[in-house]
């Protein structure tokens, strides 16, 4: 099956100020105005073009926006969720092409580039900049999406050393045990 138009999927990024979109682990950079190409780290797959049907390699995207928003909510809505302060969350449509593995709910592609982006209100002043850097539209997310992904996270008050942690336990820096968790809802 050969298609002549890119497949459009949905995914999320972290905007690494001032120039780069990255996946949320910050281990894959999406260079502005350059397509990203999938690589496979499996030794026995190195001869073949990524993504492979039975592997986990490729540029990931969901087929539908609600599933992406659900993942964002799942990732940042749990008690042990990763920190949201400092997160510059961006999500949107991504064009996928080359070799594409279709899954039940998403895709793994050989090539990808953002098509249209939305950012959270926390980084509204950066929306125009992100759009310019990547050469695609970037707007503040609609309020309906905000309701979908409303993030709740537990922030522990600062330790005496000034470090801030998101769990109850010993501070790895000053070794003070924090047992008085001050809960606070944070939205990204």
């Amino acid at each position: 099956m050969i298609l002549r138009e890119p497949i459009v999927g949905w995914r999320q990024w972290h905007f690494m100020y001032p120039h780069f979109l990255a996946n949320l682990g910050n281990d894959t950079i999406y260079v502005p105005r350059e397509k990203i190409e999938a690589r496979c780290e499996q030794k026995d797959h190195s001869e073949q073009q990524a993504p492979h049907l039975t592997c986990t390699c490729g540029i990931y995207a969901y087929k539908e926006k609600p599933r992406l928003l659900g993942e964002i909510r799942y990732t940042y809505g749990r008690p042990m969720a990763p920190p949201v302060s400092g997160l510059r969350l961006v999500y949107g449509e991504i064009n996928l092409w080359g070799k594409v593995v279709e899954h039940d709910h998403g895709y793994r592609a050989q090539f990808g580039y953002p098509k249209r982006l939305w950012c959270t209100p926390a980084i509204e002043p950066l929306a125009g900049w992100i759009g310019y850097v990547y050469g695609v539209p970037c707007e503040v997310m609609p309020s309906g999406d905000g309701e979908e992904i409303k993030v709740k996270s537990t922030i522990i008050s600062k330790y005496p050393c000034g470090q801030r942690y998101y769990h109850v336990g010993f501070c790895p820096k000053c070794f003070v045990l924090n047992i008085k968790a001050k809960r606070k809802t944070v939205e990204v």
Partner: protein
Amino acid sequence: MSQIGEPLRIIEVKPLEEPVPEKEVPFEQPADPVKEPA
């Protein structure tokens, strides 16, 4: 992005033109509104 389900099939997508904008020289960037956690 690990919740995409089981693989179904491979599709070859060969667009007539790759959807990547041309490079330009960036102008002055805005200040970062987000403060990194301490």
